[in-house]
């Protein structure tokens, strides 16, 4: 085979050549590339982390936005566990009789007439319970 006989090759590199002085300046170019790549190492890390940081920032932003814009809790008066009821029951429980009387007087709360009656003897136990149950 003619072509596989090396005597037929134009040069040692089978016809390939390089620009003039290519090998003389090779070391300098490699050194520049090493300097460039080590300088850019931290920048490359930042480029890699950038989308993840942006994603994390977006989640924080959405979380904060939700905190500011979410609808306020509505107190349901009819609910047995509502904070309203808890507040009033605690108020009555923690007050002494004297304080309760003062409160009634200050607020001008009208008590039912039956409460002021002296005929306690005529009342049944259920009626007494009903009248004293605030």
């Amino acid at each position: 085979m003619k072509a596989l006989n090396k005597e037929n090759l134009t040069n040692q590199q089978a016809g390939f050549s390089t620009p003039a002085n290519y090998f003389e300046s090779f070391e300098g170019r490699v050194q520049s590339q090493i300097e460039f790549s080590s300088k850019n190492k931290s920048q490359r890390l930042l480029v890699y982390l950038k989308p993840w940081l942006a994603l994390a920032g977006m989640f924080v932003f959405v979380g904060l936005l939700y905190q500011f814009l979410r609808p306020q809790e509505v107190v349901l008066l009819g609910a047995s566990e509502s904070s309203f009821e808890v507040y009033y029951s605690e108020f009555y429980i923690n007050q002494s009789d004297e304080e309760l009387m003062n409160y009634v007087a200050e607020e001008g709360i009208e008590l039912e007439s039956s409460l002021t009656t002296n005929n306690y003897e005529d009342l049944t136990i259920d009626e007494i319970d009903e009248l004293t149950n605030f």
Partner: protein
Amino acid sequence: MSTDQDILDLLKQPESKERCFNMLMLRYKERVYWHARKMVVSHEDADDVAQNTFVKVWRYLDDFRGDSSLFTWIYRIASNETLTFIASRQRKYAFALNDLSYPFEDVLKADPYFEGSDLEIKLHKSIMKLPEKQRLVFNMRYFEEMKFKQMSEILDTSVGALKASYHLASKKIKDEMKASD
């Protein structure tokens, strides 16, 4: 020019790393370049591969323990860099919309850094039709006249497999060139 042993002796002193690296470049730059050039064909691509090879040599020079010779170590890096470069280029053009499959003869004739004859164009065209690893084996044996044992250490393949691969590659090239006559 310094020998591998001189460079290895220098490598034992950490403060001499830069000097040692320059000696390595001086000793191996041409062989690495030509090794890559016959695989990737264009000068620009071969320059990229050769530079990347030495950037890696610099990066991993501290880890070199001398388990293999410097020659084997550098050639292994260069071969891996070359195959990685070819694979990435194939991936890049796999989804290209334009038809990039220009006739290989035209690519070589248009290359300002190719001065070969028509016979050499035919030879390179036949070589380019081989699978990458077989091409690497053929080039190392035919152009670089490397011993099979050395090739075995570089490519981490048995001598028998390399001989078979080279034999098959030579046969394919001869057949291809005969067919194109």
